[in-house]
């Protein structure tokens, strides 16, 4: 966990945090800290997710009705607020995922041709 490594981490693109949170919750209810950890683990520590940014995002998602939350107890017996995906959130996830894939593919095509010519 060197400082050098932290600098190399990728900044999150605007709006992608929501998508990552929704995606993470597809495996079942999770509290904020768990969501942060899962994102970091599954991206191989490539993404810089400031934990502090998670909570306003979760609040936003909750207000839009894409996630629901309630207080519960964590695996090691601590109080935590658990989030789960709502049916509306599931639909949103599908929509966003499709959009993201098309965007990534389009950008990939542009970058790919450039690479080929060079």
């Amino acid at each position: 966990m060197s400082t050098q490594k932290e600098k190399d981490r990728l900044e999150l693109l605007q709006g992608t945090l929501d998508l990552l949170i929704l995606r993470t919750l597809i495996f079942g209810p999770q509290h904020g800290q768990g969501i942060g950890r899962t994102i970091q683990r599954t991206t191989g520590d490539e993404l810089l997710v400031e934990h502090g940014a998670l909570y306003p995002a979760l609040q936003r998602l909750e207000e839009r009705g894409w996630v629901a939350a309630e207080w519960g107890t964590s695996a090691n017996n601590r109080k935590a607020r658990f989030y789960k995906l709502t049916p509306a959130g599931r639909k949103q996830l599908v929509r966003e995922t499709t959009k993201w894939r098309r965007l990534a593919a389009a950008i990939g095509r542009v970058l790919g041709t450039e690479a080929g010519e060079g």
Partner: protein
Amino acid sequence: MFWRKRKPSNFAAELDAHLELETGRLKEQGLSGEEARMAALRAFGNVTRAEERFYEEGRWMWWDHLMQDLRFGLRILRKNPGLTAVAVLTLALGIGATDVIFSVVDNTLLRPFPYRDADGISIFRIHDLDQATQSGRLQLSVPEFLDFREQNHVFADMTGTGPANVLYTGAGGTQELQGAAVTTNTFQFLGVPPVLGRWIATGDGAPDAPPVFMMNYRMWQEQFHGDRNILGTVFNLNGVPRTLVGIMPPRFQYFGADVWLPLGLSGSGAVVTGEPVADRRRMYLIPEERRKAGISPETVASDLNVIAQRISKLYPKDYPKHFNVKTDALASDVVGDFKGMLYVLLAAVAMLLLIACSNVANLLLARASSREKEIAVRASIGASHGRLLRQLLVESFVLAAAGSFLGCLFAYAGLKALMAVLPQGALPSEAVIEMNSPVLLFTVAVTMLTTLLCGLAPALHAVGGELHPRLKDAGRGVNSGSRPGRFRSGLVVGEVALSIVLLAGAGLMMRSFFAIEHVDLGFNPQHILAVRLAFPEGHYSTPEQNKLFFQQVLPRLSAVPGVVAAAVTVGLPPFGGPQSEVTVPGKTHSERWNALFEPCSEGWFRTMGIPLVRGRLLSETDVDSARQAAVINQALARRFFGQEDPIGQKIKFNALDQAPEAPHDAYFEIVGIVADTKKEDLQQPTMPEGFIPYTVASFGRRSLLVRTSGNPDPMLKSISRAVWAVDPDAALTRSGSIQTFLQDFVYAGPRFGLVVLGVFAAIGLLLVVIGVFSVMAYSVSLQTHEIGIRMALGARRSGVLGMVLARGLRLVALGIVIGEIANLGLTRLLASQIWGVSARDPLTFASMAMVIAIAGTLACVVPARKASRVDPMVALRYE
């Protein structure tokens, strides 16, 4: 949605939980307690920033700020109790008046009826094209009605209703009820469920159906104390035993009837089911109908025109030479003439509300000027324009809301007072005028509008502009030449102009009312009691029987102590008697000659107090022998005889030819001429009228007129006794003094306009006085310093007094000029509501200008005197 937001404390707990979990995990990885905690915090980032973002994104901030603004607004308003009280009271007057008139308009023009889909109900009239001013014929004879009903292609349903006088013989003797005979589809058509029992239904119109009827709620309550057991009992109505099958709810007053009876229609006429067919009346029905879906009113009119043209050949007497069929909504018919008055009042309250708003805007502007420093400080330490604007608007909202609340209370009381002066019959009886939810919703809308009207200008003024100069010398020396000063003066000028318009309207109403009240009736309405008589069907049907009855009644009446004279008549003053086309032998004329004719006894002229002009009155012998003699009024003599002497000539009232039990082809010899008298429409020229002995015929409802020496109302008892001594079955209805009839039906309309517009104009004037006063007082207080200098330099007190007065009066004078110019255009809209005075009456305009000039001067005097008493030393040290 609003309440789904989370509390900040809840959010903080979640962040704590996160940090603990993260610290725990790091500890498991081998870090020490303190290191783990620090690492968790580092990974988290800025905790406070996260909390702030939560707060700003949530709705808490919005809510907190609003509450803050409200608290602050209330505090500011409490600090200036005088200003707050004046502003709230001003708005309450404006909003209250608006509520009252809106309530009347909403309940009468917009939703006057309790019927299902009342907007879809229409009526039609046969309109005589040669008499454009007349509204046309609404009633149809039964064969006509059936023709329209069967031949039209445009109506989904059509009902017909005719009047039916009903004599009800119960425990308390015989009484006459208002009845309405309805086609059996009527109740289905109107769609109002009964409170008890069932509707009159299709089967009830069959010739052999058992006789039934339905009852009005009021009659049920008043005469039977709401006893539910009377349903299904049998009543004796017009001598026929009838079962009561249903009672309608309170608001249902179809045709103003006490009882509704089923009507059976056939080609030969209408029969109220159960009554003997021999009593079949030549009944006229008022049709109401609903269009089929997708049919336009134009299609209806053209379809009905085709039918009418066809059947006019069958009944040539009932149709004018040139006519068309006009359709109209039911509501337009019922509210009719009164609509114009309501629109005038609506315009008046709008002006009143504007005056109130500009008054409060003025007060707030004045205060905003003195608060400039406060606002500037707040802006300089970081309050955004939006935030400041909102805070000032919240303040005016608090004022408006308080004003609305008080205004609703005023309106509640105002409506009660309004009902007392409302002319009878001006509004549909089924309209319920009250503070209901549409009115309250309207009030909320008015509150919002008021907030903006009186708050926006002051708020924008307070927030706009440079900060620096205002921080330096705010709240002082702002003279009337500055931008807000001019704006405030403009508001005062506008207020004065609006109030001139209101005053002129009220003034014209007053002149019109006095003009109507001073119309010479031609008779003396004091101390005359009028009583209409009703008898069971078939009683006194011949002139002979009729004469026998009245020849016994009249002497008994004259013998009652306090009775001066008594007469029998058909027409009930101030309403006229029957109307007829007349024929005068030897006269040729192209247009129809119409006249009223009055079958009466010889006592008529003395009872009414109508003076003889020439010839002689009807004598006892004329009446006794049913002599064909007539007395005419001056209008008839002028109109049909011109310069000739009518006495000794003959006249025929053609209507008698049609009447049963009346002399046909009878020419009456004119024996005398009496003075003209006015009927209920005082504004119209007197109709030609003839008086003939009542003994020549027996048609028509007979009435008794009794002149008494004192107040006529208490005499009714002894008069009833005199009538019942001759015939206990006689029912006395519609009794009252002629003076009361005049008050209720003739003077009430103009008086209503006068009272309501007068009250509004008075409120407007009061508000203007407050407005002028507050602006002048404020500008004087700002100028204390300047006045001090002037006086130190030698200005006299009288000079200062004059200066302030002149400035105030300049504003008032400008307002008067603008208002009078507006009057030239606006009072014309009042023309249909006034009579006997021009809508541009110079006297009214001038006197109202005087009123406002005097009021304006009074409003300026107090601030001006205060200015003249400024002590130069104090004023100069004032800085």
